[in-house]
C-alpha cells in the first residue's frame, strides 16, 4: 500500500517508533502588498531525536522555541522544509512521514493522534459527544452506526465519563472533562502514538493531576507512546522518561529525565530549572536564584554562534562566533554546548 521509504529504514532501531532527523521548518515572513519574502522564521532548525516505543518523551522550552511545531511536523500538519521524520507503523513498516502521499497519510494518521491545549476551542460546540468522539471513525469508515455508538460509549467509560453523556454538547462539561473528551477522541482509532500539546496546562491543579494519572493509565493499558509538550517543568519531570530542551528552534539537551534534572549539562537547562518556583518557602529562601537575563531572541534575528549566548552566564568569545553542534557525550547525553564537559551545573536535588 505505502511504498517503503527510500531512505534506508533499516537505520532505525527496532525499539524506536519515531525518528526525527535533521528536521527543519522555516516560515517565510512576507512584507508589503506584493508579499515579498523578507526573511524566514526558523521555527525548527536541524532537530534530531528518537522516541522509543512505549516511552513518554517530554519537550520543554519557552514559548516560541518551536515545541508545538515539532508535534505538527510529526503529524504532518506542517510540511517539512528539510530533513525527514520516520515513523514505525504498528505492522512494523517504517515510513517517512514527510514524503507520504495524501492517501497514505490518511492511513498513518489512524496511528498518530494529537491532544490539544485548549479544550474550549478544540471541540466543536455544535457536535455532541457521540459525533465528536465518533468522528475519527466516521472519517476513516470504521464500523457501522451501532458499532460506533458502542465504541464511543466504551471510550467515554475509559476516560472516566458516563456513557449516558453521549448526546450532550461540550458546553455542559468542565475544562477537565473536555480534556477527557479530547483524549477519548484521540483514542478512537487505537493509535500507537499521541502528541499531547500542553494538554494539562489550562487545568486546575487537582484536575490536572487526575488527567495526568489517566494518561499514564492509558499508556500502560494500550502501550501508547507519548510526545508530551509543556512549559511546566514539574509536570514534564513527573511524566517523561526522556526530555528534550528546546531553545529558538533547536534542541539544546536531550537525555533521561532523572539524570538530566539532577545534573544538567547545558546552561539553559540549568537556568530553566532554577527559574521554577518551588512549593517550598524555606527552600526558596535559601536557594540562590539568579533570574535569567533578557528574553528569548526574535526568531527572525537569531544571534550568531550559540543562539543562547546573549543570555548565558558562561558564554565567551567562542560561543559568540561558533555554532555548537548537538554532540553525544560519553554519558549518553546529547548537548549543544561548547563547554558541556567542563561546566559544573546545578540541577534539582532529589527529595
Amino acid at each position, binding site marked *: 500500500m505505502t511504498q517503503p521509504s527510500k531512505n534506508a529504514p533499516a537505520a532505525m532501531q527496532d525499539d524506536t517508533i519515531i525518528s526525527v532527523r535533521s528536521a527543519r521548518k522555516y516560515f517565510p515572513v512576507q512584507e508589503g502588498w506584493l508579499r515579498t519574502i523578507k526573511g524566514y522564521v526558523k521555527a525548527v532548525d536541524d532537530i534530531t531525536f528518537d522516541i522509543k516505543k512505549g516511552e513518554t518523551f517530554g519537550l520543554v522550552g*519557552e*514559548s516560541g522555541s518551536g515545541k508545538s511545531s515539532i508535534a505538527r511536523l510529526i503529524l504532518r500538519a506542517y510540511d517539512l522544509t528539510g530533513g525527514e521524520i520516520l515513523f514505525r507503523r504498528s505492522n512494523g513498516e517504517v515510513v517517512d512521514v514527510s514524503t507520504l502521499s495524501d492517501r497514505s497519510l490518511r492511513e498513518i494518521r489512524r496511528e498518530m493522534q494529537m491532544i490539544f491545549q485548549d479544550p474550549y476551542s478544540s471541540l466543536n460546540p455544535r457536535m455532541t459527544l457521540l459525533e465528536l468522539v465518533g468522528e475519527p471513525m466516521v472519517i476513516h469508515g470504521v464500523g457501522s452506526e451501532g458499532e460506533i455508538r458502542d465504541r464511543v460509549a466504551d471510550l467515554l467509560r475509559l476516560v472516566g465519563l458516563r456513557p449516558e453523556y453521549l448526546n450532550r454538547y461540550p458546553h455542559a462539561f*468542565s*475544562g*477537565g*472533562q473536555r480534556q477527557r473528551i479530547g483524549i477519548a477522541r484521540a483514542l478512537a482509532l487505537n493509535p500507537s502514538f499521541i502528541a499531547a500539546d500542553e494538554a494539562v496546562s489550562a487545568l*486546575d*491543579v*487537582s*484536575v*490536572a*493531576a*487526575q488527567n*495526568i*494519572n489517566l494518561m*499514564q493509565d492509558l499508556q500502560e493499558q494500550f502501550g501508547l507512546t507519548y510526545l508530551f509538550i509543556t*512549559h511546566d*517543568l*514539574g*509536570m514534564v*519531570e*513527573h*511524566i*517523561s*522518561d526522556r526530555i528534550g530542551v528546546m531553545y529558538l528552534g533547536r534542541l539544546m539537551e536531550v537525555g533521561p*529525565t*532523572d539524570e538530566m*534534572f*539532577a545534573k544538567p549539562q547545558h546552561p539553559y537547562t540549568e*537556568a*530553566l*530549572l*532554577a*527559574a*521554577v*518556583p*518551588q*512549593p*517550598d*518557602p*524555606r527552600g*526558596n529562601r535559601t536557594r540562590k*536564584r539568579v*533570574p*535569567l537575563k533578557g*528574553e*528569548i531572541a526574535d526568531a527572525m534575528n537569531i544571534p550568531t554562534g550559540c543562539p543562547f549566548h546573549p543570555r548565558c552566564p558562561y558564554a565567551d568569545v567562542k560561543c559568540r562566533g561558533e555554532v555548537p553542534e548537538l554532540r553525544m557525550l560519553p554519558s549518553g547525553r546529547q548537548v549543544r554546548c561548547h563547554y558541556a564537559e567542563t561546566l559544573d551545573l546545578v540541577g*534539582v*536535588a*532529589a*527529595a
Partner: protein
Amino acid sequence: MTLAFNPSQPPMPPDRLLQLDDVGVHFPTRDGLVKAVNGVSYHVNKGEVLGIVGESGSGKSVTARSIMRLQPKNAINASGTIRFRRKSGEELLINEQDRLSRTMRDLRGNEIGMIFQEPMTALSPVHTIGTQIARTVMLHRKVSKAEARARAIELLGKVQMPRPNDIVDRYPHHLSGGMRQRAMIALALACDPALLIADEPTTALDVTTEAQILELLKQLKDEMNMAIVFITHNFGVVADIADRVAVMYLGRVVETGTVDEIFYEPKHPYTQALLQSIPRLGQSHGRRLRTIAGMVPDPFNVPTGCSFHPRCMKAVGGVCDVQTPDDVLFPSGQRARCHYAGQTALAEAAQ
C-alpha cells in the same frame, strides 16, 4: 453567621491596610443565585504580601475586584465590610462607596493599583505606553504634561524596562509578554499606591520571565513599602512571594496562615490534598500523583454542610455533610474552616 454591618466594629489596628469581614458577592443568573463569594474574611497589613490561592471558581478574583469596586453591574454585594486605610490614615468603608463615586475614582490607581493576567487586554491598544502612564499621573497629581512624561520614563526605568526613553513612545503590541507585564506594573505603580492587587500576573508568562517579574515585584514592594494581594493558582509562586496565604474554595477562605504554616503544617484537608497533587521538581518521576476525588461542584448546587465534604478524604458522616464548619483558630494565628482541623486523630476515631 451573616453579620450585618455593625458601626461599632472596633477600628483596625494601626498597621492594618485592608480588612475584609464576611464579604458576600452574589450574581443572579437564569439558573439561580450564584454565591460567588460567600462570607470571605481576610486582611492585609502594611508592606506585606498576602497570597490568595484556589482553583478556578473559588471566588479569588471576584473578591479582589470588589475591593476595587470593579464588579460586573449585576453583582449583588450581599454582606460584609471592606475597610481600607487611606494615605491620610483614615479608615474608609469601601463597601459603602458607589463604584462611580469620586472617592472610588480617587482610590483606584492612586492608593490601590491593580495588575491583571493578560496585559494585552488590560492596556489600551491605541495609546502609547507613555500616554497611558502619564494620564494616570495627571489624573491624580497636579503636574504638567512634560512632568508626567518624565515620571512615565522614570517608572519604566524602575520596572527595569530596557531603553525606557524609547519604550515610552511604543504601543503595547510592540512589546513582548514580559515587557507588557512590566509596562502594566509601571502603570499600576504610577502614583505610589499603598496596595497592589495582582490577579494572576505571571500565569501567562514563561518560567524564566515569571521569575524575573516575581523578583521585580519583591524588590518594588521593599522599595516602596507597598502591600500586595497576590492571586494565583500556582503554589510555587505563592511560596516564592507571599508572607501569608489564604486558601479559597467555593467562595470561602478555608485556611489562612503564614506561608510556612500553610506549606509545612496545613490544617485543612483541602490544603493538604492540593499540596499533594502538585508534581515537585526533584521527586522521582513516574510516581502517581495524589488527586482530589471529583471536581469543584457547580455554584448552583453547593453541597450542604462543609462545601468540601463530598471530596474530602476525612469527611465524617452526620457532621461534615450537615453542619457548616466555623473557623478553628490556632494559637499561632493560623485558621482553618474544618470541624476536625488539627484533630486528625479524633476524626479517624469518629470514622
